[in-house]
């Protein structure tokens, strides 16, 4: 019995010793001990982690950037305890593993390192808002954003309050105003970005109501916006920003800005380690010290660490299983960049130009097998692809805007070998991110079609079929034939009624009889073209009827072939057939064949050619040879008002140099554009036919105001 008793007492002693050891160890770990509590308020800060986990499991504890950072933070919490750890955002994207896990692997890191909160930043949104929401559910680490709203209330936690020795400090999160919400989230989740000034104002008010003495802003805004905030709200003691472009002053990188009113902006954007900030909170927060510690391998012995490593290893093994799918093979090394992606989009959507943001693709040389993970590792933008139409003027504005765009399809300010025409519309393909920037540059809404695919999906799909992404030459894209139709319908209707007795005479300038006059001048240009050849078929009707009399009765069909040789001179061949719309005393048909050259200079466009014409029906006439001169020019007076000039002459004679005729038509018009398809034109036409044989001429002038309907379509 006594032996049993001694055995029992030994167990109790062992238990007491174990509890004592645990207590001693526990008292030394995060958070700070009582001894440290009376000292400065210490914050650990990380930023721009970009989800940069490696995808290798082997040696990950020594080589993986995020894992070594986790080790360093945990080790710091034991060696020199701190009060709080926060992250300044841009932590979820574009790391391949983070992308694969939709940010979940980074939230595992935050959970393990006891991160209190992370700011929702612009690049994080590439993951997709609903995915971020889902990944961060039931986590210790909260997402901060006071200006991301859903149905007028914050989507994430706007701020949190930290109690330090009885002092309440509010940490408010602000998402970058340049953030682009993916189209699906916009459509389904009804989310919006509130103005940062309003968001900060309401958060400060609420924090003060909760008894906060100190306000710290965790911001992903740029330096100008941060300065504006600290100036507008003197209650803000400190702003921590991890935003990379936020840390520049006149293009010079800076790390700290002290404002006269007492606030300070700290730019903390290094990402291969953590910042340790010591604040004295006796009155206004005073920065005692700020140091950056580079992360390095640290041996950690704890169950939570083992669980974290095990979780990340599983993520990596799942990533390898799924993303090790072979997409395609290349026989020789190919250098890939943004240009390839933009050209691929042009190839896939048959658009004239494609625009993506710079660094959407990390430049790389690929050779041999291309895996799914290769694509995941190089793509830096995961917004959906949009297609839309932009006018030439808009495209010029975008080029001049000096945005970080990579534009494919424009060479020497030409699209598919032709000068960019201001009024002409071009088909464009871009990411949603670029589309949003374009709408901001042009300050207008542009109708778009969402293709519901990301660049990653497009590249994967393309490499399985066409492999346009890894082509070395994209000249074939300019050689593709396109069909464009321009419609110009100009119509008028004039009905005059006159009733008068037999005794009264017609007042001066007034019609004496009732009449109805209506007319149309309609042109349809059907163009089939590529960078070298242009085939244009133009049906043209010019028809004016007054009562039963045809004042104009022309139906013309023109077939024009132009070879796009260079910018100034282009050879052409033209076939014109003319007849009447409404048959009056038979149907005369005139044909004219000319060859010549089109000349271009700024807004002037001229044609000089030689050829022949012959009336082939209803009084078949002789073949007459001639010289044609055509000129047209358009001058934009304002954005909506333009002056258009057209000259068409044909000097002809029979083979024996008899019957010399000169036909000249000059049209001057002033066109006012009401909207994209409707306009009003004031036209003046002058026509003269001179025949030397009879030494007589026919002249005709006409002035009319018409309502014009203009529209154009591009089929492929």
């Amino acid at each position, binding site marked *: 019995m006594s*032996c049993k008793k001694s055995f029992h007492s030994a167990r109790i002693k062992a238990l007491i010793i174990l509890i004592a050891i645990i207590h001693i160890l526990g008292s030394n770990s995060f958070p700070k001990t009582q001894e440290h509590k009376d000292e400065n308020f210490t914050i650990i800060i990380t930023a721009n982690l970009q989800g940069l986990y490696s995808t290798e499991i082997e040696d990950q504890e020594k080589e993986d950037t995020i894992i070594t950072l986790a080790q360093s933070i945990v080790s710091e919490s034991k060696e020199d305890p701190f009060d709080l750890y926060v992250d300044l955002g841009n932590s979820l994207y574009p790391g391949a593993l983070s992308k694969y*896990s939709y940010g979940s692997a980074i939230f595992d890191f935050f959970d393990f390192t006891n991160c209190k909160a992370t700011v929702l930043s612009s690049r994080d949104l590439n993951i997709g808002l609903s995915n971020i929401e889902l990944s961060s559910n039931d986590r210790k680490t909260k997402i901060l954003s006071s200006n991301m709203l859903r149905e007028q209330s914050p989507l994430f936690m706007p701020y949190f309050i930290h109690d330090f020795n009885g002092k309440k400090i509010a940490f408010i999160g602000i998402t970058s105003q340049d953030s682009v919400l993916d189209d*699906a989230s916009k459509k389904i989740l009804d989310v919006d970005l509130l103005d940062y000034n309003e968001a900060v104002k309401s958060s400060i008010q609420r924090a003060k109501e909760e008894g906060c003495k100190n306000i710290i802003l965790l911001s992903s805004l740029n330096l100008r916006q941060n300065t504006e905030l600290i100036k507008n709200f003197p209650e803000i003691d400190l702003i921590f920003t991890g935003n990379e472009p936020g840390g520049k002053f006149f293009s010079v990188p800076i790390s700290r800005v002290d404002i006269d009113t007492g606030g300070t902006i700290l730019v903390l954007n290094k990402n291969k380690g953590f910042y340790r900030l010591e604040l004295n909170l006796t009155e206004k927060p005073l920065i005692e010290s700020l140091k950056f510690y580079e992360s390095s391998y640290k041996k950690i012995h704890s169950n939570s660490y083992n669980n974290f490593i095990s979780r990340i290893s599983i993520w990596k093994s799942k990533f390898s299983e799924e993303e090790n799918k072979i997409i395609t093979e290349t026989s020789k090394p190919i250098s890939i960049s943004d240009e390839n992606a933009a050209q691929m989009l042009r190839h896939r959507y048959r658009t004239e130009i494609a625009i993506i943001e710079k660094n959407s693709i990390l430049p790389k040389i690929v050779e041999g097998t291309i895996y799914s993970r290769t694509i995941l590792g190089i793509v830096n933008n995961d917004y959906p692809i949009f297609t839309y139409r932009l006018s030439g003027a808009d495209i010029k504005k975008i080029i001049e805007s000096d945005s970080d765009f990579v534009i494919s399809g424009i060479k020497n300010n030409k699209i598919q070998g032709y000068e960019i025409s201001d009024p002409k519309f071009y088909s464009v393909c871009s990411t949603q991110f670029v589309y949003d920037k374009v709408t901001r540059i042009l300050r207008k809404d542009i109708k778009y079609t969402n293709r*519901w695919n990301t660049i990653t999906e497009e590249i994967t799909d393309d490499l399985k079929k066409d492999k346009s992404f890894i082509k070395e030459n994209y000249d074939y894209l300019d050689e593709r034939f396109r069909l464009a139709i321009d419609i110009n319908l100009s119509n008028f209707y004039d009905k005059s009624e006159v009733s008068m007795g037999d005794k009264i005479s017609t007042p001066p300038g007034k019609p004496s009889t009732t009449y109805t006059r209506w007319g149309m001048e309609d042109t349809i240009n059907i163009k089939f073209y590529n960078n070298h050849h242009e085939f244009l078929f133009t049906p043209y009707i010019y028809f004016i009827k007054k009562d039963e009399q045809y004042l104009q009765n022309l139906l013309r069909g023109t077939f024009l072939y132009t070879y796009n040789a260079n910018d100034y001179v282009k050879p052409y061949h033209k076939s014109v057939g003319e007849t009447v719309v409404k048959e009056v005393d038979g149907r005369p048909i005139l044909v004219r064949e000319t060859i010549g050259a089109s000349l271009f200079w700024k807004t002037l466009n001229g044609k000089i050619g030689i050829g022949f014409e012959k009336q082939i029906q209803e009084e078949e006439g002789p073949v007459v040879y001639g010289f044609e001169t055509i000129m047209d020019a358009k001058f934009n007076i304002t954005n909506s008002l333009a002056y258009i000039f057209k000259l068409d002459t044909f000097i002809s004679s029979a083979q024996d140099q008899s019957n010399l005729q000169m036909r000249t038509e000059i049209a001057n018009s002033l066109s006012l554009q009401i909207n994209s398809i409707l306009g009003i034109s004031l036209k003046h036409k002058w026509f003269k036919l001179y025949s030397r044989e009879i030494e007589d001429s026919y002249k005709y002038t006409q002035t009319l105001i018409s309502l014009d309907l203009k529209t154009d379509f591009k089929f492929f």
Partner: protein
Amino acid sequence: MKLYKLFFAKASLYLLQVLVLISSISCATMTASESENKYDQIKAENKIIKQNITLLIRENNVLKEENSKLKNENASLKSDLKLLEAKIELLNKNHEKEIALLNERYSTLLLQKDKLEQESSSKISQLQAENKALEEKLSSEILRLSLEIKNKEESFALEKSEMEKKYAEMEIALQKKISEAQNSLLSSQTQLESLKTEIVDLKDKLQSAQKIISEKDLTIEDLKKKNQTQEQNQK
């Protein structure tokens, strides 16, 4: 008028046709735009749900693997536990056997102890009796010896007083002799002192005599030298 009516009828018919055409085109456009919006809405929902499902499936796969790992660990821990339980049972059995054995030993030891206690108590009483006898013998011996010491002390005190008397007498006689000797010493010291002064005088006299002798010797030497030089000169 007829012409006018005819034209009006034609124009109305034409206008009606145009209106019908326009309205049918606009209706078609509206319907197309509505269905486009709906299509986009469905596509958006589909995209979000697809991504969410992918995320959930991937998270689920990770958790599944984690779960299966934990299950495996749990199973191995369970088997370890069973092994340990078997070991504990074995140890318990061994322990019980050992306890039984120890209990047996303990009881035999208890018996031995009782026996030894009995044996030792008889021995103790015997030793106590012996001790008592020895103590009695020792006390009688002490009494005898103390009487003897008393007698010896008394005879020694008597002897001591007699010796003291004798020594006192001897001391007086010796003191007398000492005083006489001291007196003779004093007289001999005075004699010695006078002799010492005489010696000193004599020493002085001797030194002066020696000086005279040495001076005489020197003069003799000089004379001898003079004599030698004279002799040499004479030669």
